[in-house]
């Protein structure tokens, strides 16, 4: 027996596990095998082990779905209300898009599949944002982190730039998905800015931000806090400095660094 026959058998089993409709395998397992070019002996084995091949279908599907269901439980509730969760998962599995060896990547793969296919978006325009928010909590909690740049200060000054903690993200949604629950999964429309961060205890947290604060957090990463505040119409940066100090204490901001010229950026005196 040649090695390409081994690959053909492996492809057949994975197809049996992930294909949308198992009926061809259930109805005629030998025919299913024949249709994939497997020789008579293999066809007979498929017929002999039909029920157990279907067990593998259950096992594979359960393995791939369980991490998604654990993280995206509000999304699941949303779709179950419409009787569409199983359809959605079946489409996801049939796409055979899981490429990562890491379980923790499965929900991100699911989100990527929803984004690429547009599945459910017409019915639920907020769907991607909802799944993204559910995933965000897990990503923040498990972010591998990175050592902060050397020389960061704990207290902000107007001439400093801020450095967010590695797990921290500032996100904007067009629906209030952060308030969705399994009991009430449909979010209200409305722009919302969130700061997602890992607190000092290691738990994922989020804070709803005003548009100005969200803009400040983004702008003060590239320019001094004083400059960013001024651009936002705040002549006195003291309120911004106090807020940033509080966020640093919570763990959202790694620290502050003098606004020295960045590589490729002209210094203020050269401007």
């Amino acid at each position, binding site marked *: *027996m*040649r*090695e390409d*026959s*081994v*690959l053909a*058998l*492996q*492809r057949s*089993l*994975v197809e049996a*596990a*992930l294909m949308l409709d198992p009926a061809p395998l259930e109805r005629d397992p030998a025919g299913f095998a024949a249709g994939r070019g*497997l*020789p008579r*002996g*293999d066809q*007979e*084995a*498929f017929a*002999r*082990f039909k029920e*157990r*091949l279907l*067990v*593998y279908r259950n*096992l*594979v599907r359960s*393995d*791939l779905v369980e991490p998604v269901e654990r993280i995206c439980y509000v999304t699941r509730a949303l779709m179950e209300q419409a009787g569409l969760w199983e359809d959605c998962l079946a489409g996801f599995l049939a796409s*055979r*898009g*899981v*490429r*990562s*060896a*890491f*379980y*923790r990547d*499965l929900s991100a793969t699911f989100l990527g599949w929803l984004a690429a296919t547009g599945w459910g978006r017409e019915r639920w325009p907020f769907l991607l944002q909802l799944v993204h928010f559910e995933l965000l909590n897990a990503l923040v*909690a*498990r*972010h*591998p*982190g990175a050592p902060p740049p050397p020389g960061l200060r704990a207290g902000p000054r107007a001439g400093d730039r801020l450095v967010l903690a590695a*797990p921290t993200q500032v996100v904007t949604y067009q629906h209030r998905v952060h308030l969705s629950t399994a009991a009430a999964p449909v979010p209200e429309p409305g722009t919302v800015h969130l700061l997602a961060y*890992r607190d000092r*205890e*290691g*738990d994922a947290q989020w804070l709803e931000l005003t548009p100005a604060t969200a803009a400040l957090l983004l702008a003060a990463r590239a320019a001094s806090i004083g400059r960013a505040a001024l651009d936002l119409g705040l002549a006195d940066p003291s309120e911004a400095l106090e807020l940033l100090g509080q966020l640093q204490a919570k763990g959202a901001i790694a620290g502050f660094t003098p606004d020295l010229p960045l590589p490729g950026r002209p210094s203020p005196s050269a401007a």
Partner: protein
Amino acid sequence: MATAPLEPFTGVGLGLRHPHFQAVAERNPGVPFWEIAPENVIGDGGREHDRACRALLRDPVISHGLSLSVGGFDPFDAEYLEQLAEFLIFTGSPWHSEHLCFSSVDGSVTHELLPMPMTRAAARHTVRRARELKDRLPVPFLLENITYYAELGESELAEPEFLSEILDGADIGWLLDINNVYVNSLNFGFDPRDWLLRVPLERVAQMHIAGHEQWGDLTLDTHGAPVIDPVLELMKWVLPRIGRPVPVLLERDNDIPDLEVLLAERSAIQEAYDEVMAAPARSPHA
């Protein structure tokens, strides 16, 4: 065959699982070694990860992988192998084990341990892949016999011969999962002791022991229940025939109970282990 020294990897260890990270990070509750899947550590972060790393740095650790798809055809991920090598050095694992199975095809990952066709071609292919891993990893490489529920295609070899061809052909050690042998014996109707007389016990470097559950007329290797007496008896039967104090690992991956419950089960298995190892070794075929 290259194997690392057994010390301190002897006795009965425990799989280190997420619900117990905090307790284990605080103190080692008398477990001689832990086993952990590198996929659950590499690239991860956060509080639970830090807790796991504290235990992994402090205590003896054995690495047991889930994702290399040794019998598959997808090329090994070079970046992952580099990360795995770093992990193995970081933990001081004496070896790295994987399953005799495939889990991905054409880049599509199933996260399930799927059975190999028991053919000479599949054995030749797996030998090449196992040799490649043996060459690319910084510690010895072991393969574990899996539970399987169906033969994939027409078999040319019985499982003991298939397994022997691969272990001998790749010249690697064996992680003997005694529960898998037992579960397969129920599902395929053979005598597990006869099976164990047909395999190269001299290649065993580690053992797994676990619980299983019934699902209709099929016995499933769920790692979701306590070890039952017949499996424990099988461990006691085979250990003297291996003739060396190979480490035994108690696996529990589903319905994970409180750590104290698992520790009690581990202690009971350790007692059985100690009792057997105190007796003279037996010939593998006695």
